[in-house]
């Protein structure tokens, strides 16, 4: 056995040693010429190149598309229109009435997304926190329940959308159960309020496992002696929660909040499969609007879709900056 592992080790290490010798000379030469800064650039280059090709270049291209009009795909074939697409997206005769906006469906989608984010994030944080608090207790089958709550995170969003569509549609499982219980069936996905609530519920169900895990990690990092001291002092559980658990979980909660916000703004796939944006446009969110305008619709307009995605990107940049700031605070708090 030892002989096998030794020969395996030789097989792996010998080529690596040869590779190290080959690149050793040029790296030394580069280090002598450029110093430490130059070496850092060498090691950063592969990552930067990948980031540049797959993020920066598409971002720049997207912006360029947003300054053009027409149905052609290739940029040189398109007509430069400056900021007209942005003007078209943002211009309204009366900002209190979406119908007077040049792109009324953009405003509808933006309004729907805002409402979705507010309700979904609040529900997501609350449900994830409650679940994490329960799973942090010494209950029977804790490992099983942790797996159960995390399982939907592993599912494809399309599968999530289909599962819930089969449950909520007119001849779906939920109505079957209701009818068997002697209740009147409901047309869940044709009612504006139900459909909107369903998109929130389904997305919370699909993603809460991930946020629960973050909060669970935060809960387990809280020193046990604080709870023991509170217990010895006879502090009521509610006070323990508000004075110990919640403040010490603060940085994790902040990260969960911002990540859920970003994910909420980007919501698309499971809702697209579940409701298709309906009834009417009551669950039409920004990403679906961009998809429809850019690709799916007979009324296709790639320039307008690009401009809308740039505007949505700006919102996401602000949210990401907040997340980075909060993560920085968490790191500093950890060092203290």
């Amino acid at each position, binding site marked *: 056995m030892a002989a096998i592992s030794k020969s395996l080790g030789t097989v792996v290490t010998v080529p690596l040693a040869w590779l190290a010798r080959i690149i050793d000379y040029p790296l030394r030469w580069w280090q002598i010429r450029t110093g430490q800064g130059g070496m850092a650039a060498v090691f950063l280059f592969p990552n930067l190149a990948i980031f540049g090709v797959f993020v920066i270049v598409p971002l720049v291209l997207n912006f360029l598309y947003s300054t053009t*009009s*027409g*149905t*052609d*795909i*290739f940029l040189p074939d398109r007509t430069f229109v400056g900021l007209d697409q942005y003007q078209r997206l943002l211009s309204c005769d009366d900002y209190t009435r979406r*119908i007077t906006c040049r792109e*009324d*469906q953009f405003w509808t989608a933006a309004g729907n997304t805002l409402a979705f984010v507010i309700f979904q994030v609040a529900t997501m944080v609350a449900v994830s926190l409650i679940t994490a608090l329960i799973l942090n207790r010494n209950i029977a089958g804790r490992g099983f329940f942790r797996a159960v709550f995390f399982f939907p995170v592993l599912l494809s969003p399309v599968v999530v959308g289909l599962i819930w569509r089969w449950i909520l*549609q*007119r*001849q779906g499982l939920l109505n079957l159960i209701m009818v068997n219980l002697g209740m009147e069936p409901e*047309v869940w*996905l*044709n009612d*504006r309020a139900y*459909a909107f609530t369903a998109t929130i519920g389904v997305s919370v169900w699909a993603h809460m496992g991930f946020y629960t895990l973050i909060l669970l990690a935060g809960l387990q990092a809280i020193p046990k002696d604080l709870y023991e001291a509170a217990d010895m002092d006879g502090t009521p559980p509610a006070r323990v929660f508000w004075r110990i658990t919640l403040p010490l979980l603060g940085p994790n909660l902040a990260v969960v909040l911002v990540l859920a916000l970003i994910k909420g703004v980007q919501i698309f796939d499971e809702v697209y499969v579940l*409701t*298709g*944006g*309906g*009834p*009417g*446009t*009551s*669950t*039409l969110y920004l990403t*679906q609007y961009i998809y*429809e305008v850019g*690709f*799916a*619709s*007979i*009324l*296709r*307009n790639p*320039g*307008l879709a690009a401009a809308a995605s740039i505007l949505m990107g700006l919102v996401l940049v602000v949210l990401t900056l907040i997340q980075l700031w909060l993560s920085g605070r968490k790191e500093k708090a950890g060092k203290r």
Partner: protein
Amino acid sequence: MKRTMTSFAALAVAMLGTSALAQDPVELRMMWYSDGVEGEVMQDLLDRFEAENPDIDVVLDNVAYQVIQEQLPIQLASGQGPDIARVTNLKEQAVHWLDLRPHVADAAYWDENFGNRFDWMREDGSDAIPGFLTQLTMVGGFANKTLFDQAGVEMPGADGTWDDWVNAAEEVRQSQGTTAAFAIDRSGHRISGPNASFGANYIGEDGMPAPIDDGTMAFVEKLVNWTTEGKQLPDVWVSAAGTTYRSGADDFINAQIPFLYSGSWQVANLSTKIGDAFDWVAIGSPCGPAGCSGLAGGAALVGIKYTEHPEEVARVMDYLGSEPVVREFSERTLFLPAHAGIVETGGLNFQSDDPNVPPALDRFVQASGETLPLADKLPAWKWANAYYGALVSRVSQAMAGEITLDEARMLMDEDIADVVANAQ
């Protein structure tokens, strides 16, 4: 050792020589969608073609209709795509079709048998041979005869109006407890025949889109009212945003609605899935004040001009467009052929034991002679899709109560104007 090396070298040279002589067949990709059994029939036909033409390998890529509608246009716009595709958006994408005229064996045969529909799928003023219609379709209705009989409701006759049909279907709904009285597919194309029957005109004198007129609004208003009253199944139109296509066929097949307005391409689908569960009939198009019009259309098989093998594409198209193959395809798929020679000689032996099928196909053939002038022009009109898209998107919003009919009318005009401006 030396002898072994020499043997290996000789073997390698022999293998190289063999592979050079036996060329790999040219691979062609055909993007295909199916409403019924036509994918299986096409695969069978292609297998036979490949047996006769071992130098060509046709790979049939079966995809969802949504892929044809949403992904293929992006591929085409970027100069890519399959070698051959089955499409329904014929005119708007005509710039991407391969002109088969220099490649087919007998261009006169194509002109004679398929030429009367080439303008549906080529640019205005072009003499290209872009492909052929795999089927001629006619929009029209189906009624669940069993449900009507059980309810004791008589079906309106040949001159039955839309109101007659919806009211009769509503009586059936109340009697039999179906979910709704009827459904029309969620498609601007589908409601354009009825719009024409109510006096609509989409095309301006200059060939550009005309403003939404009272004829269009007359039928749209009825449709919206029927939906809000629960007569039309809201699941089809209301429960989606944008221009997403949805069919009411599954609800008809599941006997949830006694009346479906869809089209001739559903005949095989209904026959296969309904079987002997209930009797159904094709009813043509109900009437409006201006006529009883459906809308002709079709799915076409076209060569894509970005193919690297135009000669091989033309050979496949020559085979699939030949009279015996078109005849067999139509007989097995229960599609109406668009081949002038076959239509003229007739005698199609549609392969179905279902007694509902022959009268249904006959009714659609009859309905194709009842279309109004607008309906005849739309398949070859460049801006038809702009109109269809605006209709679907805004009428759905009106049905959902988000906008009024007047607002829908204004927004449809704006949407159409935007498409025209963006395309020019």
